[in-house]
């Protein structure tokens, strides 16, 4: 550390002000601005120096982000960076070699290199550890074959974080390794995967004799499951990022409709609306409480609950929106096979809201898996009898 005194909020704000004074956000190229911010250690303040941080307490980051916003800097989190910033970066920090950190973190942060995640497979969804993509050692590299699915951004990504099976003779959790995969490698084929909305938001990725250098392995061979846990935990933690105003979420779809279209109101739907308003407000306050806990250095287990609640509320709000609209809800905009056009969710047609939110309880951990996690890890309820933990992966029923 260059600074002998530990960084506090006031000092952090001062550093940001100093930085912005030197790099006017209105005139500096956005990637250059972010690159300089990374170099100044103001990207992830809790990361070490040289890796975008200052080794300072994580709780300072919201203060820093808020100060950058106040001084006119564009937000770091942008469309296309969610996997890189939220999942790849903390994993590379935790398990990467110095060379890996140096190579990957800066262009990831500036947005010059987009990342995707190659975890799920058609036969390994909730039971991710059952995955079957094979990685076979070949000298200084690994040869990969398999199929991944539910991959957002694969068609735009330069890099992927990837898990593959390196030892099928071990029980499933123990024979997995974790790699960084170059999406431009020969043998990587990305095919759009069309959802029930009509759009192809995700991809299937076919890997055919894809070669990955052993230097692109994260963590030890066979330790991939543990590395992946870090990735997934960060996925869920990122949910409680920022404070949200009342009616700041999906609930606004129906409260605005209710206020502006009195002719749609019915007594029964009023009760449904009020119940959802209460639920949405309860979920919002819970997320706010979690944010305050994190800021106070007392992280609670409520993070895993937030996704569960918002999935349900989003789905119920979208269902109510159609119920309110009646005949207007019977229409759709466009069923043609296409990539998402980047239109904000709230501006899509109600039918899209209804269909798209169905994925909220599936993507990023199903609601069923989250309930099991809460029951076992938070409440300490006993696990189910398991037959798949000590059996060699290759002998598992499937």
């Amino acid at each position, binding site marked *: 550390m260059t600074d002998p005194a530990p960084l506090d909020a006031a000092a952090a704000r001062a550093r940001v002000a100093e930085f912005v004074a030197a790099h006017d956000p209105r005139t500096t190229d956005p990637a250059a601005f972010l690159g300089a911010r990374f170099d100044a250690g103001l990207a992830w303040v809790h990361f070490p120096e040289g890796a975008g941080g200052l080794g300072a307490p994580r709780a300072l980051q919201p203060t820093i982000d808020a100060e950058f916003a106040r001084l006119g800097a564009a937000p770091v989190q942008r469309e296309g960076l969610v996997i890189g910033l939220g999942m790849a970066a903390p994993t590379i920090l935790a398990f990467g070699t110095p060379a890996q950190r140096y190579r990957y973190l800066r262009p990831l942060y500036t947005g010059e290199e987009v990342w995707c995640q190659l975890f*799920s497979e*058609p036969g390994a*969804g*909730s*039971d991710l550890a*059952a995955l079957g993509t094979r990685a076979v050692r070949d000298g200084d590299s690994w040869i990969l074959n398999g199929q991944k*699915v*539910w991959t957002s951004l694969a068609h735009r990504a330069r890099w992927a974080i990837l898990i593959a099976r390196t030892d099928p003779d071990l029980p499933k959790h123990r024979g997995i390794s974790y790699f960084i995969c170059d999406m431009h490698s020969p043998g990587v084929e990305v095919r759009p*995967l*069309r*959802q*029930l909305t*009509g759009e192809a938001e995700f991809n299937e990725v076919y890997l055919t004799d894809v070669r990955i250098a052993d230097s692109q392995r994260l963590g030890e061979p066979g330790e991939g499951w543990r590395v992946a846990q870090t990735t997934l935990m960060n996925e869920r933690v990122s949910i409680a990022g920022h404070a949200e105003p009342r009616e700041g979420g999906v609930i606004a779809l129906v409260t605005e409709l209710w206020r502006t279209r009195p002719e749609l109101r*019915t*007594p*029964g*739907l009023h009760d*449904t609306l009020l119940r959802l308003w209460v639920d949405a407000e309860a979920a919002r306050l819970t997320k706010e409480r979690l944010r305050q806990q994190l800021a106070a250095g007392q992280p609670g287990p409520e993070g895993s609950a937030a996704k569960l609640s918002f999935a349900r509320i989003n*789905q119920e709000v979208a*269902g109510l929106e*159609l*119920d309110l609209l*009646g*005949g207007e*809800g*019977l*229409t*759709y*905009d*466009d*069923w043609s*096979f296409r990539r998402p056009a980047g239109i904000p969710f709230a501006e899509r047609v109600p*039918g899209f809201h*209804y*269909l798209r939110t*169905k*994925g909220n*309880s*599936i993507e990023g951990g*199903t*609601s*069923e898996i989250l*309930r099991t996690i809460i029951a076992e890890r938070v409440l300490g309820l006993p696990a*189910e009898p*398991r*037959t*798949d933990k000590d*059996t060699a992966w290759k002998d*598992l*029923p*499937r």
Partner: protein
Amino acid sequence: MSADPVPADLDLLYDDVEEGLRASVRSLLADRCPWSAVLERVETDAPTDVALWKELAAMGVAGLPVPERLGGAGATLRETAVAAEELGRAVAPVPFLGSAVLATTALLAAGGEAADGALARLASGEVSAALAVPLATAPDTPFPQTVRYAPGAPGSTSSPDSPADGRAASGTLTGEVGGVADASTAGILVVPAVGADGPGLYLVEADSSVRLPVTSLDLTRPLATVRFDGAAARPVATGPAAADALHTALVSGAAVLASEQLGVAEWALTTTVDYLKTRYQFGRPVGSFQAVKHRLADLWVAVSQARAVARNAASAAVHGGPEAALDAALAQAFVSDTAVLAAEEAVQLHGGIGFTWEHPTHLYLKRAKADALALGSADRHRMTIARLADLPPAQWEA
């Protein structure tokens, strides 16, 4: 004070004739209407399977409640409901609801020579028909006012065609109706309109109207905006008889629609159960996990109840009267929710695959939600129940 304390003991079973009809329809649909064919067809410009409809008509399905003297099957709405159940189970893209239920029951209720002529054409499968009301119209909605009737021969602004059956029209219609189901492929439109003498129900040859297809949430049931621009029209009922005929059609439609929804729910439940017996996660069939089992058990209970409720509504619709309206409202209030729940659970419990375009579940989800809005939402039907079962709303100051 209680609502009708001893309802008639309606027959809630399926008799042998009905089971025979079911077997024939199911067998035809299995051959001609697998979901893969449905999915392929609905992306074309001709989502309705007119050829299949002619085959169904040859089996009598186009005119089940039409008397034999008019070439119909001489059956009742009970048999009609059985056919609806099978067509729902297959999400078959045929104009059954619009033609064989809504238009047919409106014409049967109206009676008279003109109606008989049209019924004969429908029952034979020569043409299909549509009832020109928005699909979302609830039975207790006031008589539609968007189309005006004027007596006298078609003027210069109307279509040059005279009615195909050779008989002169008595007047013309002008106006527009949105969200009409099965209109685009219809040969005949049954149109509620108001003239100087009040409400009337009119027959219009469909090609003398302008039909603008709209993109429908339910891919398998196309909707259109229908515009009349001085179209030649022939009255089949006027005054209170017209309002009664329309009300009867909407009540009958709501009753039969419940059986279609039952078919959708049965498909969703059965398909999900079958899938979960064979899908392995964590070394076990997913269907062996208790939380999944209990949800499917609850869904099975709901579907069993939906069967009784739908059967009751169909039997009551045969008899007509206020009891039929109450039983239809009950059926819509209950079965709409059940079918949507079943389809939503199917998506969720299929996991990722159920969220894709290439799996049939979304066709059922869209049909289930659209059916729930069709002919009035569950909420609207609960308000009808409040009125008919003497459970008045609260008086409450806003």
